[in-house]
């Protein structure tokens, strides 16, 4: 494979935006139906009350909350990773960044839905907004849920910006190639981008600042999500490592999600030329590192609890190690640790397919981890008289499924309106250095299967 001309590259990457196959419509329709079902179910739940879920006394949180943490976790793929890669200026990042950032935006939106879904009276959720009310009341700033509210909104806002900024030149590109309403739309989006050196300079510096700012934000967000649990005197929740533990888990699951998405995009939009084995391999390495870190945290958490040996914590602990929740626990260990290890280390096994398989495992495993953090602790809280257990009911499961459909749908639509790979950054890459091409050749020499 040799260097392509700008125009062919542009055409390649813009094709999805301009060409719309029937397959696309079918997929979109199917996904939309599932999402609609999700909303219908939510309405059903609002109408009758939370009783339609499996929540009970004393396990008042279940699947909805698990999904909340899970999706917020997924959201840590994009922005954080791309920010880091931008700062260390890893050139191979160029085709990856936008795929990643989009995941962040949408995963956050979906994740942020679940706190609403789990409310007993969601129509009053606006009481979390601090505004001078006639009741002379403010939100309770001591509540981690209020921290969540602010943290997530901040993160959402900044990652949307982070997504929008580098898209400006591409908007301009589309603007120049279209007429009619789309010309108008993309004209507005591109904020009068002319590609003057001054604009380029501003964009670059803006991106740098954002990249620097976004990393602490991202880390704080999932730390605060972890506070939802670690701030309560509940066995296995009241732990000091929850902050980093959650952040690592988040990035872990984030990368996994990114791998899967990239593979799908690659297949569906025929971007084999741009999303290459090297990207999967590098992300795989990163994921492997996270897997190790995560494993360390889990071991740490369990060991400390076991050594501390306080009765209620032990009850919760054993329920996950050997008790009723142990099957889930060991599945999690397998998916997050045992499965990725060979697939990502052994050279022979390494491949896109392998990475994707490992990633799927990790996503499942991380979802289980969220569940295992929430439910067993609540089951074994307080006096043994009041212990309980939890089983989800259909509305929770439907909404759970719908959230994945929503993710896919949003992603699909996005890739329809905006090139999923940052065209100008690719071009910059083309011009500035030959590294990418070099790496590509080397990877082909290594006989990577595509």
């Amino acid at each position, binding site marked *: 494979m040799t260097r392509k001309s700008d125009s062919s590259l542009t055409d390649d990457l813009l094709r999805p935006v301009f060409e719309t196959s029937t397959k696309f419509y079918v997929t979109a329709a199917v996904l939309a139906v599932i999402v609609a079902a999700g909303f219908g179910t939510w309405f059903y739940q609002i109408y009758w009350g939370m009783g339609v879920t499996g929540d009970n006394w004393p396990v008042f949180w279940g699947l909805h909350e698990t999904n909340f943490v899970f999706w917020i976790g997924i959201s840590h793929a994009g922005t954080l990773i791309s920010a880091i890669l931008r700062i260390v200026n890893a050139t191979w990042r160029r085709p990856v960044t936008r795929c990643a950032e989009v995941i962040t935006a949408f995963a956050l939106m979906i994740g942020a839905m679940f706190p609403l879904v789990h409310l007993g009276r969601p129509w009053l959720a606006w009481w979390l907004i601090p505004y001078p009310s006639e009741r002379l009341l403010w939100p309770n700033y001591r509540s981690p849920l209020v921290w969540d509210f602010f943290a997530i909104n901040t993160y959402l806002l900044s990652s949307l910006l982070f997504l929008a900024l580098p898209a400006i030149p591409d908007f301009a590109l589309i603007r120049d190639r279209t007429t009619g309403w789309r010309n108008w739309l993309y004209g507005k989006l591109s904020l009068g981008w002319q590609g003057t050196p001054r604009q380029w300079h501003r964009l670059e510096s803006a991106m740098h600042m954002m990249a620097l700012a976004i990393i602490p934000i991202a880390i704080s967000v999932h730390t605060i999500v972890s506070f939802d649990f670690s701030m309560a005197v509940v066995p296995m929740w009241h732990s000091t490592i929850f902050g980093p533990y959650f952040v690592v888990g988040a990035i872990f699951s984030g990368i996994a999600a990114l791998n899967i998405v990239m593979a799908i995009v690659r297949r569906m939009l025929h971007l084999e030329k741009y999303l290459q084995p090297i990207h999967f391999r590098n992300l795989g390495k990163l994921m492997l590192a996270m897997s190790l870190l995560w494993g360390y945290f889990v071991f740490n958490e369990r060991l400390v609890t076991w050594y501390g040996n306080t009765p209620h914590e032990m009850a919760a602990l054993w329920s996950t190690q050997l008790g009723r929740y142990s099957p889930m626990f060991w599945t999690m260990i397998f998916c997050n640790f045992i499965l990725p290890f060979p697939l990502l280390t052994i050279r022979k096994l390494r491949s896109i397919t392998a990475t994707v398989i490992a990633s799927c495992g990790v996503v499942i495993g991380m979802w289980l981890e969220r569940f295992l953090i929430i439910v067993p602790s609540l089951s074994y809280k307080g*006096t043994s*008289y009041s212990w309980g257990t939890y089983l989800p009911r259909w509305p929770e499961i439907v909404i759970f499924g719908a959230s994945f459909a929503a993710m896919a749908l949003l992603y699909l639509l996005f890739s329809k309106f905006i090139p999923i790979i940052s065209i100008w950054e690719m071009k910059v890459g083309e011009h500035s250095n030959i590294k990418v091409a070099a790496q590509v050749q080397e990877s082909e020499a290594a006989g990577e299967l595509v």
Partner: protein
Amino acid sequence: MDRRNFLKVGALTGASATLTSCGNPEHQMIRFIPEEEIQGGIAIWKPSVCPLCATGCGMLVRVVDGEAEVIRNGKKGLIQMGLARKLEGNPAHPISQGKLCARGQAAIQVTYHPDRIIHPLKRNGVRGSGPFQEITWDEAITILLSQIDGLAAAGSQNALAFLTKPMRGQRQTLISRFMQSYGAPPPMNFDPFGDQVLRRANAHSFGHEQLPTFDIAQSRYVISFGADFLGSWNAAVPQSAGYGEMRQGKPGHRGKFVQVEARMSQTGANADEWVPVNPGTEGVLALGMAHVIVNLKLRPGNLAALAEYTPAEVAKRTGVKTERIERLAREFAENSPAIAIIGGTPLAHTNGMFSALAVNTLNTLSGSMGKPGGISFMPQPGKDAPPGTSFNKFVTEQLASPESPVKALLLHEANPVYGSPSAWRVREALSKIPFIASFGSFIDETSILADLVLPDHSFLESWVDDVPESGAGIAVASVAPPAMRPIHQTRAMPDVLLDVSHRLAKPLQQPLPWKTYEEMLKDSFESISPGADTWNNAIANGGVWGKTGEPGVRPLVPLFPRYSEPEFDGEGVQFPFHFLPYKSQSFLDGSLAHLPWLQELPDVLSTAMWSSWVEVHTETARGLGLVQGDVVEISSTQGKIQAPVLLSPGIAPNVIAMPMGQGHETFTRFASGRGANPISILAPMAEPETGALAWAATRVRISKVDAASKLILFAGGMREHPDDHR
């Protein structure tokens, strides 16, 4: 639109626009003019008497106005009236002392029960199949009159029968006078789980055919033989109050409490020492203790009479270690005043009389009879009603003769079809009766057989009175006016009875001169204690009480009963387990299973709600491969029932126990078709002297069956983790 509403709109999304179009909730219903002076929102307290069990607690009813749906001159509408909102103990009342048990407080749901009979009914279809049709009171009374007059015309007055739950006070008097003056046999009290045996034993030992009153508060040592005296037996409320005092009421003196029984009851759960014994040998243990006491010269007594009750021998029979027997005996003698209580299971064996007398002997030895901290008997003013005739005799006669000897049965709040062993074949017996009229407020297994239903007021809507049998050191006669006006088209049974008695072809004016039950009560109370405003004070305070006569106990030489071996139905190999049905803490013998609060009240030991269960010892269950919630079939020689297993460390391995109360076929939406009824499989064993049902004398076997478990436990700790539930 201000900021607040703007935000709301934002929160609500466009949906609201489409939704606002939907219908208007307020619908107008006509309101009648109130029939009483009542101020909105102000609570007033009115005295009343709890009718649910034999204790007879005086209570206060909190009445606050509200709008009830009623029918006035044919029109349905709302009326503002004083409504009972809460029941509490009457602090002035010597029995309740301001307290009320869980059952008593749930009694309010009797009045407001959605399945109460709200107007007279006439059978309309096959008897027992259910369908009834609404009729007016005039029609109802006419039918009743024609039946009773019909009997009189045929000269067969003695073919009229009256069956009630155990009743006291003027209601009992009224009914018996009615029957007597009409020329019918005296009314029958249905109470298979009552304490006839103990009453008779007390007559033998102390000359009082009555349940004893225990001064637990002053006592220093209480040993109870199977009596659930803090839960469901005798005067539980005052006994609990006394228990509290015994424990912590006297600084420096914490009384000891020992419970002797084969299955740990709620009362047993509070004991300092819980002594399991072989079923039916409680009396033996008592005499064993007596032997030790006399032997050690701690009390004077005739050792010869106790010769066969040496500790060694007793240990062999009861399964209690010799040392323990000796220790208990010593403690009992050394810590006076001491009380020995017997009740419940031990009396429900064929040798119940022996056990009762044995424990009475122990009490006589202790020397605390009639003393503070001991046992006394309540004087019962105005108790002139003759004792009822035996229900069993009535049933057997019914079944014996081809032609029913009883032509008309009047039924009041007794449910023998549910409450007696199927072996008694009560349903067949009653079905033979040509005419049955029920005064009850609910359709249950018995009243569904009625041809005519004349629904009674609830106790809150009617004049109530009672003469408690035990629970206070002084004489008590309770009386109270209605706490609220009736919400349904019902009439008070006593008033109906008086009305009928006057409208009979041969009116009973002379023996029953009163127009209303109120007048009758007034007369009786002024006869009890004459005085200008006795009556007004009585209805203001909820009764009269005070020292009338001595709670005298004939001081006796201890009499030593002859031992009689308990007999059991079903031989040991085929039926390895003793079957102990016990009065449920919520439902007693099942008469309260229709109250939702009690259905959802977690049983304190099992934490079970809305279900019945069978208690099996943990080890026994392991042996049979049973785990918590497994459904088992319990079969006796008389039949089989199914119930989920509840593992319990507090029961002898050779015993299984089951609460009464569930397993109703027809008893309102809350109780019907729920759980199983242990009474149904009981063998018709009887205590020979009194003929009382020996309900603990049945042996059974259990086997696991494949059925969905309906065991609902409140304690998640037991629901989900039966092994961690300690």
